[in-house]
């Protein structure tokens, strides 16, 4: 079997919300290059926005001196985005699927991001090594039968 040709990109940027737009544009452009139609490229860049927002907010607690590393790897069959932080990590198994009507009563504004990531991407996997290297990897297949 011939190995698939893989294309690798990396970007490193300060952990600030004003970089989200640049990151979305970067990932969207690569998703289109990888062969995703506009609508699915939009889904990928939204999932990446959510993951980066979480790193800025939860892992780096808005400390703008921290950096975020983002890798994009694509081939003919899929795109993978890996986002790395050195924060304290968390246990994603403890998260519950958001119940919107409950949220309203608690005036809670969060808990939607990871749910959105899982809905938009085909695979979302967390690995943790708190303080050293926490990663989220998200994969979307090019020919996913919806």
């Amino acid at each position, binding site marked *: 079997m011939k190995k698939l040709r893989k294309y690798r990109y990396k970007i490193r940027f300060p952990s600030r919300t004003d970089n*989200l*737009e640049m990151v979305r544009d970067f990932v969207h452009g690569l998703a289109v290059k990888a062969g995703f139609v506009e609508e699915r490229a939009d889904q990928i860049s*939204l999932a990446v926005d959510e993951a980066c927002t979480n790193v*800025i907010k939860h892992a780096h607690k808005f400390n703008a001196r921290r950096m975020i590393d983002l890798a994009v790897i694509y081939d003919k069959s899929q795109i993978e985005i890996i986002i790395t932080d050195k924060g304290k990590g968390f246990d994603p198994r403890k998260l519950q699927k*958001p119940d*919107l009507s409950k949220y*309203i009563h608690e*005036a809670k504004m969060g808990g*939607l991001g990871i749910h*959105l990531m899982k809905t938009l991407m085909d695979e979302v996997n967390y690995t943790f090594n708190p303080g050293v290297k926490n990663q989220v990897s998200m994969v979307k297949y090019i020919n996913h039968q919806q």
Partner: protein
Amino acid sequence: MSGFEVSRNDYDHISVLYLSGFLDAHTAPKFEDGLQKLIKEERVKIIVNLKNLDYISSAGLGVFMGFIEEIREKGGDIKLSNLSPKVFKVFDLLGFPALYEIYEDEIQAKTKYSETK
């Protein structure tokens, strides 16, 4: 840097917020300010017109969630109008249509307020 803008129009007892551009974790505070100001002025019959909104992430959706109960308790509501298909998809994915009234255009949302005045 395309940014994000909030503008506002008051009609009698109804206030309309117009969002344009990109609503994400960076720009969400601007939208929060807009809602907070309306609540302070006790103008709680609110329509958020999303005609020119190009993008929304969960940080933007969270703003709707964070204020809706207070506004409803005060006898008001947040009704949405003019969502592009792309923006509607995100609201839909998270189940918002079950919790918020979403209208094709602003006039329909206004009419709804008038009927239930």
